[in-house]
């Protein structure tokens, strides 16, 4: 029984170390909980040829903050923020501004509805 016990303790230590390592390593690359848009500058997403320049833009907010961004588009389409279900039309060469409170927690897509092209990944932390 005692050798079993030692083995169990050794096993436990190995697993705990593995988990601690994992958590420490994880916390290095993630900086969740802070709003990515605290600088005060309104993020602008530029759409060229129906695709977001620089890939899908990540926007992160905390619940209760004001979500505010602008989309410049060279194509005419409807921009749909899923979950919040906010839809606005944009004309080719025009721009449209979104301004609404971050009231729902989760990860949401905003896309060019007609093209089914995602342009923003919107994250709202609690």
């Amino acid at each position, binding site marked *: 029984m005692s050798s079993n016990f030692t083995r169990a303790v050794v*096993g436990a230590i190995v697993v705990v170390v593995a988990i601690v390592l994992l958590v420490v390593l994880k916390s290095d690359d993630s900086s969740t909980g802070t709003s990515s848009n605290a600088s005060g500058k309104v993020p602008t997403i530029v759409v060229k040829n129906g695709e977001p320049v620089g890939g899908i833009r990540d926007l992160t907010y905390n619940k209760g903050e004001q979500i505010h961004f602008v989309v410049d588009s060279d194509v005419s389409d409807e921009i749909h923020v899923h979950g919040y*279900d906010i839809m606005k039309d944009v004309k080719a060469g025009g721009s449209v501004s979104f301004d609404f409170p971050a009231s729902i927690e989760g990860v949401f897509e905003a896309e060019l509805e007609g093209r089914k092209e995602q342009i923003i990944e919107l994250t709202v932390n609690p």
Partner: protein
Amino acid sequence: MNLVLPLAHALVARKDLPIPAWLFAWGASIVLIVSFFALSAAWRKPRFEDERWRPLGAGFSRVLLGVPVQVICGAVGVFLLGFAIYAGLRGTEAPDRNFAATFVFVTAWLGFPLFSVIFGDVFRPFNPWRAIGRVTGGAFAAIAGQRAAHLAYPKALGRWPAAIGLLAVVWLEVVYGGSGGVAVGLSPHAIGLAVLFYSLYTLAMMGLFGVEEWCQRGEVFSVYFGMFSHLGSFGVKDGRLGRRLPLSASTHWATIPGSAAMVIASIASTSFDGAQDGAFQSSIQQVFEWLADTGITKITSLRLTDTIFMLLTFAGVALVYLIGIRGMASVRGAPPLKKLRMGFAHTLIPIAFAYLVAHYFSLFVFQEQAQFTYLLSDPLGTATTDLFGTASGGIDFQLLSANAIWYVQVAALVIGHVVGLTLAHDRATAYWGDYRQAARSQYWMLAVMVAFTCFGLYLLSVSNT
């Protein structure tokens, strides 16, 4: 080449936030503490092998198992099957506005496992293919004056057809449907065709091997939902409803070949769905780009990549389980490897259920609001019908906070872990005469369970951006 991977679920307007690091650490710590308690405070004689069956009042059985209820349930099942096919083929191509997508992949696919655990095998009376098969069989017997003859089902095949079918259903949903090249899921038309095709296949197999035989071994949905019903305490025996010790029925579930494959397929497919836009995303992206560079089209490359990763996940989950089994076989007094492999398969059912709850709980709660509002009143998504006056309804995404979802996810995994350990320990005390050897064998299953639970927590904690 910089290709952007398309997203899997267009059905879902909202995705869960990854669980934060502190909750991950707490969850994993609780798992370890619980596990070591399990090692020390263990019982020495099996407790769950005997069901302690107690029949409910005869009135319950007469009504609930009676012909009128069977006919009504069967008719409801057949109607819903037909309607799902009709909505899929004739309704809108927008998956989130079409009855078929949510009904098949959320209401039925996720709802039945939940209700099966609570109320027993509720799919059986509603199973539309079983209902059609029984009516056809009855009509044949009445006309021909004798029962239809069936082929003998090959014993070695066991539940393998169901396990492969389960992978096929999930493949259709998350690999084929997730790879449309744009952010749409499986199109409702494809769902309608798939359900139609599956119905023809199932009815043909029932004709070959017999309705009940096929439902027990080959019919994906019967076997899959039935598996979860073995965790709960309600069941039917000798034509009577009754109660048994919770979990006890599961100890007799894995007596047919392929049962382990079934539960492993369940864990693997949920894992893959959770990992494809999280933990596996960058690896998938790499393989995808490599394939796309060889000249294969974008969609084919992506489907191929996802298929490879899904099969790898299945192999990985199977490998962890088989290592645990090998390890147990090395303990003195162990039964043959084959017996061990089958004998511990049921201990993974709680893990499979925990994975389902952790990954799909919020999706189910949100999407069912759609199912019972606009998808019910405007099932084809044509915006011209309003059958029940709820067509303008929507999903209240504030119903669950991120915190509530995280706690449910972690609680599900921890509880699944404890139940899995309990069943594994119980089985060990039944297989090893000597209590100490039984306890030693369980270091191996403990490692298996810790691996699955921590992997589950890890999948939930990886950001999907």
